[in-house]
């Protein structure tokens, strides 16, 4: 999948590159930049961990052989510092056990030096797509939470019952209000949650429960 331009939506994504060999690092930076990404190189794992301006969606290309902490250790530390950040590990030629460890620890892919351009772009595309989804989901979750914040307590109760599949009449009986009032609540809920149809409410409830298990 060696295309000239990244898939729409991936252009402009950040690719962080940790590689101690200057020539290898700079060549990868040049190529990634030409392919429409925004690469940023680091000469050691410590430098990358100290970097605070990380932007998402992004992915990290880590060379295994590094001075100081090595690529695999760096990969483990990144999991805490930047949860979900997809990593691609660059191994020395034929180092199967390292590759296996990297994949077990959650690497999206591993690349062997000399790095094949097609493999590189495939791996970066996969990693960025994955991170895009992760970022989008997080954003959706936040937005949904913000919208739900705007409901009153009674509206929240009505929302739960509607999405439990109860009819207006049943809800009215339960709360001792008229079905007409339930209709009003429903209209307010639809407006606040920006739902156009009742089916949208069900989807929101579904998303809510998926994102907050046990809630």
């Amino acid at each position, binding site marked *: 999948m060696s295309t*000239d331009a990244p898939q729409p939506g991936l252009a402009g994504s950040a690719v962080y590159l940790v590689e101690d*060999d200057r*020539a*290898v690092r*700079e*060549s*990868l930076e*040049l*190529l990634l930049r*030409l*392919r429409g990404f925004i690469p940023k190189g680091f000469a050691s794992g410590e430098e990358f961990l100290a970097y605070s301006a990380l932007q998402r969606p992004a992915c990290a290309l880590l060379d295994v052989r590094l001075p100081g902490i090595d690529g695999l250790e760096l990969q483990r530390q990144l999991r805490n510092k930047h949860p979900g950040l997809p990593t691609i590990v660059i191994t*020395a*030629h034929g180092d199967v056990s390292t590759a296996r460890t990297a994949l077990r620890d959650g690497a999206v892919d591993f690349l062997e*030096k*000399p*790095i*094949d*351009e097609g493999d*590189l772009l495939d791996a970066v595309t996969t990693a960025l797509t994955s991170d895009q989804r992760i970022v989008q989901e997080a954003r959706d979750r936040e937005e949904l939470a913000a919208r739900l914040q705007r409901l009153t307590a009674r509206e929240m109760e009505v929302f739960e019952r509607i999405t439990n599949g109860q009819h207006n009449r049943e809800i009215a009986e339960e709360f001792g209000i008229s079905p007409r009032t339930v209709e009003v609540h429903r209209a307010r809920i639809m407006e606040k949650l920006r739902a156009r149809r009742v089916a949208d409410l069900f989807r929101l409830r579904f998303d809510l429960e998926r994102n907050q298990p046990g809630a």
Partner: protein
Amino acid sequence: MTSHSEPLAEPLTQGAFGRLFVRGAIFIALYVLLDAAAYTLPAAPFAATPWNPHPALAVVLVIDGGIWYAPAVFGAVALAEVLVREAPGTLLGTSLACAGMAGAYVCAGLAVRRYVRVRWARAGVRDVARFIAVVSAGTLVAAALYVGGYLTDGTLDLAEAPRVFGHLWIGDLLGQAVLAPLLLLLTQGAWRHWRRLDRSVRRVAVRDTVLLVASLAALLVVVFGVKPFDEFRMSYLLFLPMIAFALRYGLVGAALGLPCAQIGFVLSLVITETLSTSAVEFQLLMLTLAITTLFFGALADERRRSAEILASRERELRTQQSELSHAQRSAAAAELAAALAHELNQPLSAIGTYASACRVLARNNNDREQLLNALDRVAEESARAGQFVRRMRDFFRTGAAHMERVEVRELVAAARDQVGDRLARSRIAWRDSIEPGLPTLPVDRVQIGAVLGNLLGNAIDALAGSGPPRAIEVRARRASPDAIRIEVRDSGPGVPIEVRDRLFQPMSTSKPEGMGLGLVISRTIAERHGGRLWLDTESHQTNFCLELPIDPVPA
């Protein structure tokens, strides 16, 4: 006794019956003829000759053919008794004597067949001992039954019986010891083996046999003709050529030599007419000679076989060793290749990526500047890879080095700089003492730097396990008018004795990581410089010595 589990006889197949008949008939004829020949020289009025070769025929026939030949043995014994000795007793006495004797021969043959390894290519001292034991017992029983048979009808006087029995037994036994080995050899196709031998080997064997016969004859002339002492008291001289021949040719030699000695001996006795007076002395002497010669022959065979086994083991061992060292070399080469591959991988990887970038840039005319820039970088990386390859090639193949005169102090300081961080981190004290006024050394600065760096690295590794105070000392002095010695000594526990011998061999590293090639390469470098690198075994601490010549070695 262990059994060789030979059956009493191989099952008879069709056609084998005819062979059995023919061989049986030939055997009977030979048996009677031999008996008659021996009987022309009777040692006493009664039928007892100094040696009886024919029982050996009977026993060997049974050893070779099994129980199927029992009838032939019975027939031969009876026929010989009638034809040669004219059946001295009654029908009953003669029948009993013959049946007893023939039965004992058959049993002896079957016992040998079962308990003795008679293949001459494999027989040893133990087999000779078993063979002699079995035929001693067999001939004893045969003589006893024969004498007993003639005692029943009064042909033999009881008073005469012990003497006749003794004569008969020893005579039979002597015949077995002298003739059976040769007969066994013939039944085992020794002749075919002889024909397969190399012509020169055969010529030597014939020469030796002629020598044996000649020396036996000469000795017999001395013993019986010159007669420095009475009777044949000098006969022990016969042992010398016989033992020599047996030692040279083993059991085959003994089997060939014994009949020669026997025939010579008997002829001498007959010619000098000493036979009747000293038959017993002759029998005992000849028996001792036969048994001694057979044992020496078996001993020689065993020794030769074990020497062959030893030699083949040694060959195997050498092959294994050479395979091992080959494997070691391949392993070292594989490690080296892996290290080289890693070094080359970086520039190659950069080149590949720049090339991909160039392809993108080349499609866009606006990026000309960037394209040229990237191409420059490709060239740079290519040069970097090339430099590395050249350095390696110089180092491993041509040995080409950039020789320049360098101060010793400078070499030591550069080496120290290489490991400066590690010294500080491991809190290792550094001392160097460089004799003032040392001349410069003609060296490749990089290579000798690598050697010293390697020695210092080893010293730091060695100190890792030992407690403070940790110190490394480097000393340089003039070792001789034309050489300077640099010593690297650490305060660690020293190199274990068992490691010392393998120190300069590839793959002998005691470190979990590492190529185990450092000292090997270092020594190669030292030698390319016309110098030496060794471990000072006098010192109880680790002390590596690098000695380099002051005058450049001619290229």
